[in-house]
């Protein structure tokens, strides 16, 4: 029988029961590779449930550093009887099944083409512990110990991690170490060389950090100067506000008074969250909310008001599977159009597309600057894959010379000196007017903010020309945004090719890997990673320079492609959608297969004869 043999390049999947304490054990497993200098990319696959339903944790061990999901499973750690059959089916031929053999299972429960490694986890745990909860929790640590022995993870590395986790909690430290040793020794003695997957010390992690995108976004909001956070709990975005709270408690408490330089309000719903952000933004504080698709739907009326009344607003949209309640715990990039054109009437909004936690941090801070500069809503379009999974990323950086861009705010001194103030007056030709904070001056600079039509001096008006003047200026402002938002990232293959690939956000790691695979298969493509909407000229140029452009997205309706067609007037035939939308993160295998197949078809088309890829 075939036996998968691999060093520092394999996928381990854990099948667990939600709420059984497996999450921290599995994280310990994943981190142990990092400490050995081997990059990993773990992913939670979890149900919309707190306890009892199946949950999976997939760890891709990848010395080459591919952080996307690979697809396929080399070793399944099957700890959940509920999903046993499905889990066993998922193992690649020649792969391994690690399971708890305390209770014997009939032969029909296994497969002929995989290697089965049994270990009496429950028996060992029950023999050592009497408390039911301890039996469960330590069983998890015991299997981590066994896997360490089976895969060649250095035990010292895990001991170090356990030590860090239970620092100052001696009562927990020792029993965890013991459980780990128990599993390690059992496997070392009785399961020698049972698995052909091996970890070997490498030097590929470098100074990279390991963090989830939501925590990074929360930290970015602290660095970017957000003082007001109003939110309503919704998966998968809740941990953004929670991270903001955690970091603020550490970094934003005035040492002398013990008082907070932040306010976090868990609102009654998303309508109130965005309302509070609008109110705070109107009054000159940096404010944000974090939500997901259903929340954005609820917020759209306010988003239109903020667009039309020109109020800075920052929204982090951690996208999940839609529509409706959809797939709350699965990932998608399916809010692109909903956010780009959110609200009734003619509206369009600035969107940022971070690719990883590092960019969640950067884009969060950048969004606050952009919202103030442009006096408009700005969306940070992350998703569950980036937001709720820990990911290796370049360390965060901050330039201490950087100043917050508070945009055009007229001061009391300027008003006093007689500078002309018209709230909606385009003084610089960039479509961006000056604003004043409430309370600035006793007699000058006051104005009435409204969602109805107004003239350049904020006076109510229902005159057609006045309305047109205002909305045309808003278009000029959107034009200005093009040069302020993060620019797209080009990867030119260095050869003449008629194929281009456009992608964005969490598709990045899978695309990076697919790029190499396509190249190896002799398919040359240039790629452009879109980092923001509105699109600037670099995007139109890229499309113009290629005969066919694949637009890789994680939604059914090719939403970014629609946006490209609509905003750049591109011939739809030129943009070929490559779509992955089953709720799992897109893989390099998928992209490579899709693009290879289409290139093959395009190359045999009579019209394209004579042109090689």
């Amino acid at each position, binding site marked *: 029988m075939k036996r998968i043999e691999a060093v520092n390049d394999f996928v381990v999947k854990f099948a667990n029961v939600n709420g059984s304490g497996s999450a921290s054990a599995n994280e310990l497993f994943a981190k142990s590779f990092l400490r050995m200098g081997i990059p990993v990319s773990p992913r939670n696959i979890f149900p919309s449930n707190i306890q009892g339903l199946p949950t999976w944790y997939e760890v891709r061990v990848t010395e080459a550093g591919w952080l996307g999901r690979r697809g396929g499973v080399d070793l399944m750690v099957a700890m959940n009887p509920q999903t046993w059959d499905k889990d066993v089916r998922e193992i690649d031929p020649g792969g391994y099944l690690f399971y708890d053999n305390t209770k014997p299972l009939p032969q029909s429960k296994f497969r002929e083409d995989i290697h089965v490694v049994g270990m009496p986890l429950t028996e060992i745990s029950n023999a050592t512990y009497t408390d039911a909860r301890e039996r469960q929790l330590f069983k998890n640590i015991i299997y981590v110990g066994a896997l360490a022995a089976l895969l060649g993870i250095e035990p010292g590395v895990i001991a170090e991690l356990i030590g860090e986790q239970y620092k100052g909690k001696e009562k927990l430290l020792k029993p965890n170490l013991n459980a780990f040793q128990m599993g390690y020794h059992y496997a070392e003695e009785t399961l020698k060389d049972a698995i052909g997957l091996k970890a070997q010390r490498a030097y590929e992690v470098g100074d990279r950090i390991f963090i989830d995108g939501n925590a990074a976004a929360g930290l970015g909001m602290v660095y970017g100067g957000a*003082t007001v956070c109003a939110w309503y709990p919704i998966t998968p975005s809740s941990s953004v506000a929670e991270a903001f709270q955690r970091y603020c408690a550490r*970094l934003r408490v005035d040492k002398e008074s013990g*008082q907070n330089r932040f306010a976090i309000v868990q609102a009654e719903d998303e309508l109130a*969250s965005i309302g509070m952000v609008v109110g705070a933004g109107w009054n000159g504080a940096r404010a944000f909310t974090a939500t997901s698709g259903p929340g954005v739907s609820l917020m759209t009326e306010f988003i239109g008001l903020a667009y039309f009344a020109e109020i800075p607003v920052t929204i982090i949209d951690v996208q999940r599977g839609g529509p409706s309640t959809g797939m709350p715990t699965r990932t998608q990039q399916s809010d692109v159009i909903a956010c780009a054109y959110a609200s009734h009437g003619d509206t369009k909004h600035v969107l940022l597309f971070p690719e990883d936690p590092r960019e969640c941090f950067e884009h969060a801070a950048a969004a606050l600057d952009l919202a103030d500069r442009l006096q408009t809503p700005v969306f940070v379009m992350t998703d569950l894959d980036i937001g709720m999974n820990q990911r290796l990323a370049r360390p965060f950086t901050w330039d201490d010379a950087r100043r917050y861009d508070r945009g055009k705010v007229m001061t009391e001194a300027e008003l006093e000196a007689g500078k002309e103030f018209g709230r909606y007056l385009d003084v610089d030709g960039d479509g961006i007017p000056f604003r004043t904070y409430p309370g600035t001056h006793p007699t000058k600079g*006051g104005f*009435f903010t*409204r969602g109805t039509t107004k003239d350049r001096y904020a006076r109510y008006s229902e005159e057609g020309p006045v309305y047109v003047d205002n909305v045309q200026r808003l278009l000029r402002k959107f034009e200005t945004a093009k040069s302020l938002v993060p620019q797209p990232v080009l990867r030119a293959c260095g050869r003449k090719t008629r194929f281009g690939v456009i992608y964005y956000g969490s598709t990045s790691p899978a695309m990076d890997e697919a790029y190499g695979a396509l190249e190896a298969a002799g398919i040359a493509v240039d790629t452009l990673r879109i980092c923001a909407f509105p699109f600037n000229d670099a995007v139109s140029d890229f499309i113009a320079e290629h005969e066919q452009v694949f637009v890789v997205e994680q939604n059914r309706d090719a939403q970014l492609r629609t946006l490209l067609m609509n905003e750049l007037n591109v011939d739809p035939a030129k943009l070929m959608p490559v779509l992955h939308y089953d709720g799992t993160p897109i893989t390099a295998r998928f992209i490579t297969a899709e693009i290879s197949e289409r290139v093959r078809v395009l190359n045999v088309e009579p019209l394209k004869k004579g042109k090689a890829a």
Partner: protein
Amino acid sequence: MTFIAKPRLHHPTLKQNRIGYTRRDYEGKVSTLCAGCGHDSISAALIQAFWELDIEPHKVAKLSGIGCSSKTPDYFLGNSHGFNTVHGRMPSVLTGANLANRDLIYIGVSGDGDSASIGLGQFAHVMRRGVDMAYILENNGVYGLTKGQFSATADAGSRSKRGVENTDSAVDTVGLALLMGASYVARGFSGDKEQLVPLLKAAIAHPGAAFVDVISPCVAFNNHSGSTKSYDYVREHNEAVSRLDFWPSRDAITVSYEEGAVIEVPQHDGSILKLRKLDGAYDPTDKIAALNAIARAAADGEVLTGLLYVDPSADDLHAHLSTVKVPFNRLGEQELCPGSAMLDRINASLR
């Protein structure tokens, strides 16, 4: 409504308040509401209240929702910033604005459609949070701007101008505000300025969530017989529990009232509410008694007005969140950004 522009010049003999402003300095644009609208009387009462309180007009932020009432912030305090938000959502915008700058005074103006129907949720939650504001509900029991539909505060059994009977029970806004945790609850009548101005003054000065429900007849759609929000009906059925005098903290003025008829309620910020009780048994610091009195009056078909409840030890959302004294909108990088050295330490903890 009138189309005559207001003259800008003030008569030199106009009386000034302690900070040198005349009442005219507290006015706004000419109202576009119907002649005789109760809402205009409320705007006038607000102008009077702010003038008497010696508050600089630009230190006030006016927020409203959508509807006839919500248009009124344009008609008073013309030099203040105002924000006409979206229907029923003024409370959340006011909350955010208040968090951004705790130094301003916040006035929320809403109507019965805005607060009791579409905005009932936000109305309840802004009271729960204790946002420091004066929330004024201009209550006429009818949708004026869309021409005469019943609102959720219309009493069951009352009739619309077209003779249709309302069969839904009414939302009791003062009772709800009390239950939700408002720390100052009053009800006035737009036709009784003498009672209304002190109620508004005390609400403005109250350091917490202050709610004033003002019955304000709609002359166009809800001032006929069969309405329970008409001028005639309210005048006939008004039962005032108290007459209020409000003294800001700097005035240690004592006025002699009849023994037993006056109670002094010192507030958290040092200001004093003086209450001349018309109903001898009424104690406005007793929340349960207040709820009882409101329910009893409603059962009797009476409109209870006056100061219904005040919590003298009230505090607000900033106190609950323990925020710094400096307004957030004045904090910069120095106070907000932890800097690169700290970021390096955070990076180190993530390896």
